[in-house]
């Protein structure tokens, strides 16, 4: 007779959960007997196959049977156990509240983040057939940027793959209102944008093609909300606004259409869409047009892409005078990917953190329930002896975990409701499309499914264990078994080690983010942050139609502002550190860009000479701007910062070097006349490509006004406002911020992330330590007699204490060890978020592990000291 295949460990384990050892042995014995019969009747291979398949069926069939039994529990019985369970939970309010709260926070946090994932990745964009929408862009081997007017016109004329194209560009100007003027950020949209996106207007129409001609009358489409505010219109479709006039800068636009208030993620918050009237372009650049295409349903994306590239290649020779980079072509990217940016990784981190917390909380709950079940063993044995089936007992025990879960889901939904409210307010600077967040059915369903999973995790194991009580004869003995048998102890230790293992990655991640945040805060901002005040002033085109007029205005305004009490110096600029620059490309005379490669880019800042005094940025080499640099016929000059100089001319002087600015080969070369200290414009701690400064800031219509104050900022703001109001009553003043605010806004994401992860890690550590303390206290209780005997026989209290601590620290060490492996493998996802600290930073990991071990030691010391101080006689007497 040939031997039957081995029974898999997990099958045996599962069978042992449901059946007595004797029953398992006889059942498997009978199956092996069948195997022998099959071997003779159908051959060895088939017999083995049948044996394997049938043995695997046992766990599932047994589980189903147990489940059916639970479902059959009589209503009155479950009502009674509901009462009992509630009572037993209320008896330990602290622990019950801790479990409900932590599980609830975990569930709520997961549900909140799921809501974001749902919006960004599951539901798709809120435009019809959004999967056919793409962003069409310029693409070099290293980067992507918008199209130019030349590109847009050629694309429109030559393409056949898209059923619609929509182009727009963002603009800012002043909106003239009855009370004066306000700064308005709006969109200039070429005819066809709304149709491309599939947006239905509430009333009126989208601009016709002819209205996009450069000499067409100016027209505008506004949102319902804007119509209500600007025209005091109350009807639902806003049609009263049609034909009215909106004045932006020096131009009056006739309203031809009204949009629903929510335009969707592409231009969330924009309320005014003027019709883009594109002038015939004199050169290839600049590249400021965002183009969205809707691919025809019968065209494959790669065909559309091939056509885009073909058109780009076709028009390249026509504009080679002003654009020589032949490595640049056109590309396209799904619109949702563009809008979602790099949110996926951030969400994964957040989900990991909050999921980790939930797991720790669940393990903690399982541990608690396990201890409770162990404590109630005599009761279970009695129940079984009186005729209760295993299913009934398991069901009774499950009620408790169901109650805890209900509490958890209630707290969780509250947390989710709060989270969905708070998230758009605090996180919209680093997570896109949060305005679309809603507490929807799918989110509630997710929360409930998560709760069911938690309930299963922390309920089923203790319930099954508890209902096995009958097979243990020692159950009724009381005393010793109150603290649980060896297998419960093992399970509890496993759970605690598991919790500690989960806590360490959280702790390490939190510590890494905190270190990185501290590094960012300590980093040299490159400019004098204290006593710096900045605001934006927008001059209307009507009052100040050209650079000359604006130059006069700023000369007067700056002179008067500098004369104000409390003001040390003032200057204007376009670009404000640490997050406010613009990109431009250039081609160095000494290092021309090779063919098939892209030109280098840098931050392009327009700043007058005084700007550097106001910000406290030193001149390192060469000379400062001079007033003659601004003369009409003066050769173009720039200042560069040290980062730029080091990048392009390491070890050599950058002064005197010349380059072609923005591909304008027909213009005279621009000369570097000086090098100044590095100031970040792409975010603190970002190793940017350096900055280039142009001097003609006073010709700008809406620059930043940067002011160095002597003392308090608030009175100065009021004085400056008043001064500017006297000079131009209509000029809106916006974006008022102190230097500290600018820095702190720039650190919003790292601050939030480190705070969140740090908090989660702390809560999780607290829970895990409570778990460890629990098993230690249990163990001391269980080994009371043993300890008493040891002490009575002359064992030293210190030795006893050491014995107990060793036992607890073993659990902690296993947890920390597994956690360390886990940490090293998961902290890599943080790499891009960290500044001057490595994801696998050994110091952080060791410090986090050490902190955990110290806290664990404290949790072990208290119960073990109690054990060592036990009075032998009393301890033995208790037995």
């Amino acid at each position, binding site marked *: 007779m040939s031997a039957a295949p081995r029974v898999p460990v997990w099958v045996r384990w599962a069978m042992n959960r449901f059946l007595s050892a004797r029953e398992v*042995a006889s059942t498997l*014995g*009978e*199956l092996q007997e*069948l195997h022998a019969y099959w071997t003779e009747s159908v051959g060895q291979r088939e017999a083995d196959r*049948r044996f394997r398949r049938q043995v695997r*069926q046992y766990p599932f*069939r047994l589980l189903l*049977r147990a489940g059916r039994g639970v479902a059959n529990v009589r209503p009155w019985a479950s009502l009674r156990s509901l009462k009992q369970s509630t009572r037993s939970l209320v008896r330990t309010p602290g622990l019950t509240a801790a479990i409900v709260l932590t599980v609830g926070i975990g569930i709520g946090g997961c549900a909140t983040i799921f809501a974001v994932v749902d919006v960004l990745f599951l539901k798709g964009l809120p435009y019809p057939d959004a999967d056919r929408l793409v962003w069409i862009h310029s693409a070099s081997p290293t980067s992507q940027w918008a199209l130019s007017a030349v590109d847009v016109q050629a694309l429109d004329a030559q393409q056949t793959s898209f059923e619609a194209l929509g182009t727009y560009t963002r603009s800012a100007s002043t909106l003239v209102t009855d009370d004066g003027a306000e700064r308005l950020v709006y969109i200039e949209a070429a005819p066809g944008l709304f149709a491309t996106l599939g947006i239905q207007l509430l009333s009126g129409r989208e601009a016709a093609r002819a209205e996009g001609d450069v000499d067409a009358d100016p027209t505008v489409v506004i949102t319902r909300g804007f119509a209500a505010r600007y025209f005091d219109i109350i009807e639902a479709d806003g049609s009263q606004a049609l034909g009215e006039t909106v004045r932006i800068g020096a131009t009056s636009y006739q309203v031809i259409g009204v949009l629903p208030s929510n335009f969707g993620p592409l231009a969330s918050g924009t309320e005014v869409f003027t019709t883009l009237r594109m002038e015939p372009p004199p050169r290839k650049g600049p590249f400021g047009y965002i183009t969205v295409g809707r691919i025809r349903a019968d065209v494959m994306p790669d065909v559309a892409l091939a056509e885009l590239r073909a058109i780009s290649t076709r028009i390249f020779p026509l504009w080679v005078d002003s654009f020589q980079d032949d490595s640049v072509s056109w590309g396209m990217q799904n619109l949702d990917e563009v809008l979602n940016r790099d949110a996926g990784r951030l969400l994964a981190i957040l989900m990991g953190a909050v999921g980790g917390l939930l797991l720790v909380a669940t393990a903690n709950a399982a541990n608690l329930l396990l201890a409770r079940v162990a404590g109630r063993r005599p009761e279970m044995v009695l129940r079984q002896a009186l005729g209760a089936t295993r299913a009934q007992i398991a069901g009774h025990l499950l009620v408790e975990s169901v109650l805890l879960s209900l509490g958890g889901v209630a707290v969780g939904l509250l947390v989710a409701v709060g989270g969905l409210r708070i998230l758009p307010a605090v996180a919209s600077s680093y997570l896109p499309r949060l305005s679309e967040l809603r507490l929807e059915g799918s989110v509630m369903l997710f929360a409930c499914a998560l709760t069911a999973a938690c309930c299963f995790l922390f309920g089923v194991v203790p319930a099954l264990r508890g209902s096995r009580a009958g097979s243990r004869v020692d159950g009724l003995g009381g005393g010793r078994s109150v603290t649980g048998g060896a297998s419960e102890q093992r399970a509890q230790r496993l759970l605690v080690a598991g919790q500690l293992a989960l806590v360490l990655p959280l702790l390490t991640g939190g510590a890494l983010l905190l270190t990185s945040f501290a590094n960012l805060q300590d980093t040299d901002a490159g400019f004098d942050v204290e006593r710096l005040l900045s605001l934006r002033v927008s001059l209307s085109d009507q009052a100040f139609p050209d650079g000359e007029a604006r130059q006069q205005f700023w000369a007067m305004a700056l002179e008067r502002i500098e004369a104000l009490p409390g003001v040390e110096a003032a200057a204007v600029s376009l670009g404000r550190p640490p997050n406010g620059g613009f990109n431009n490309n250039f081609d160095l005379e000494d290092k021309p860009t090779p063919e098939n490669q892209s030109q280098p880019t840098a931050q392009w800042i327009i700043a007058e000479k005084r700007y550097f005094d106001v910000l406290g940025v030193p001149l390192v080499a060469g000379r400062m701007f001079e007033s003659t640099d601004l003369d009409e016929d003066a050769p173009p000059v720039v200042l560069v910062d040290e980062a730029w100089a080091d990048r392009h001319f390491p070890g050599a002087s950058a002064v005197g070097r010349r380059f072609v600015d923005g591909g304008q080969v027909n213009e005279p070369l621009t000369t570097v006349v000086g090098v100044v200290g590095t100031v970040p414009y792409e975010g603190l701690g970002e190793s940017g490509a350096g900055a280039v400064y142009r001097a003609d800031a006073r010709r700008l219509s809406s620059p930043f006004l940067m002011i160095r104050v002597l003392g308090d900022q608030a009175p100065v703001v009021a004085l400056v406002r008043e001064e500017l109001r006297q000079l131009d009553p209509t000029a809106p003043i916006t974006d008022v911020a102190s230097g500290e605010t600018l820095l702190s806004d720039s650190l919003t994401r790292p601050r939030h992330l480190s705070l969140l992860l740090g908090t989660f890690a702390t809560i999780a550590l607290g829970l895990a330590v409570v778990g460890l303390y629990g098993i230690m206290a249990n163990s001391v209780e269980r080994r009371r007699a043993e300890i008493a005997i040891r002490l009575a026989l002359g064992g030293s209290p210190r030795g006893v204490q050491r014995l107990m601590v060793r036992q607890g620290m073993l659990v902690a060490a296993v947890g920390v060890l597994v956690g360390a492996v886990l940490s090293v493998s998961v902290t890599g996802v943080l790499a891009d978020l960290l500044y001057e600290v490595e994801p696998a930073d050994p110091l952080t990991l060791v410090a986090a592990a050490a902190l955990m071990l110290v806290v664990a030691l404290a949790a072990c010391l208290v119960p073990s000291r109690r054990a060592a101080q036990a009075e032998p006689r009393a301890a033995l007497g208790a037995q």
Partner: protein
Amino acid sequence: MARRGLGDFEQQVLLTILRLGGEAYSVPMVVEMEERTGREVSQAAVYIALRRMEDKKLVVSRMVEPTASGNAKERRYFKVSPAGLERLEECRRTMDRFWEGLDSRAEGETR
């Protein structure tokens, strides 16, 4: 309230015990059922069905110790209880009432 009827599989299991002389353990039952149905029968399914019917008092079981000559391990033998017999007959009567007068027609249609 427990369900009054018996499933097809339960009926087959009970009838197999009767065919095997009124008391049987899972191995000969599976063999017998495979022969009668012409399909592979899962021992786990038979075992679970038996335990479930034992809960409902339709069968009774006993453990039989290993014997020197025969089995090397313990086996659980099942017997149909009077209640089980009664339930089986009830099922048969119910089905017979449905079949009454249809035999010839059903045969005609299958041909």
